[in-house]
């Protein structure tokens, strides 16, 4: 029988992310982030410009949770629903983990540029469905 694929190693990334939405009016969400974990389970921490933590996202095989520091993490069925609620676009965090590691992870409607991944930069654009979303990540 086929041996199960080795679990992707839990990685930790920290840097800055900006998500721009070509909505009307246009929106932008930017934050310093710490991302840790695998597709199965992990945590994403988002910080404001002066260092105060703004939100914490956790996911596991049973669901995803958004904590805004008020002590009542809000449950979501999955990460896509959570990120759509948090920043207006269903960002596939598990795909982002692959992109950060330089592993291609094609997604329908998304155009991903990993050419600068070795320099700690990546850009992913969701062309469909509208509004267009432009996700940029910088890490060190």
């Amino acid at each position, binding site marked *: 029988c086929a041996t199960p694929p080795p679990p992707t190693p839990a990685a930790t990334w920290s840097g*800055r992310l900006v998500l721009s939405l070509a909505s009307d009016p246009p929106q932008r969400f930017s934050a310093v982030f710490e991302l840790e974990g695998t597709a199965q389970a992990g945590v994403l921490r988002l910080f404001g410009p002066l*260092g105060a933590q703004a939100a914490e996202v956790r996911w596991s095989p049973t669901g995803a949770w958004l904590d805004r520091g008020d002590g009542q993490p809000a449950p979501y069925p999955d990460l896509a629903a959570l990120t759509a609620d948090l920043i207006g676009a269903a960002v596939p965090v598990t795909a982002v983990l692959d992109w950060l590691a330089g592993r291609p992870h094609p997604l329908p409607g998304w155009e991903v540029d990993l050419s600068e991944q070795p320099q700690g930069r990546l850009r992913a654009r969701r062309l469909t469905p509208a509004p267009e979303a432009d996700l940029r990540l910088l890490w060190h």
Partner: protein
Amino acid sequence: QSDGLQSLELFLAQVQQGRATFTQTVSAPARSGEATRRTRSSRGEFIFLRPDRFRFHYTHPFEQLIVADGQTLWLYDPDLNQVTARAQAAALAQTPASALAAAADLRAVREAFELREGQPRDGLLWVELTPRARDTQVQQVRIGFEQAELRALEIRDGFGQISLLRFGPLQRTSHLSAADFRFSPPPGAEVLRP
């Protein structure tokens, strides 16, 4: 014997402008299986001009600029060449920076924060400020003084994270003017006004 509250009052009344370098250490609670708190540090320069102008220019580990020019709060990220501009009044009301640099006097600070004398610690006299508005990311702010000299700004958020800014010697004869707080987005920068 001057205490923290008196130091803050003196600082707000006597120090109308200033320039200082700062180092910032952000420490998060140790997670299960970790011995110590995780820390991140950054540094830069802080200038301010009462009553409503300041600038945090982070230089390490990456450059970030936060400028309050009196009307607008500008956030500029040179690596991403992106600028976010917000009306200063709304954006700043509860922030620690406003208590420190953009408040005309103690009464103005009291409008946004409940004030209490803090415990002396690390050789400093502290004031504890609790934001009156509940929905802020900031749970508590502490400002530390050494003989009415600003030395530290400590910010606690809802995740148990503590951000401590330690200021170098405050240069007061810096003749700052409004021009030092003007910011215009560089050519080609993406500007957003949420």
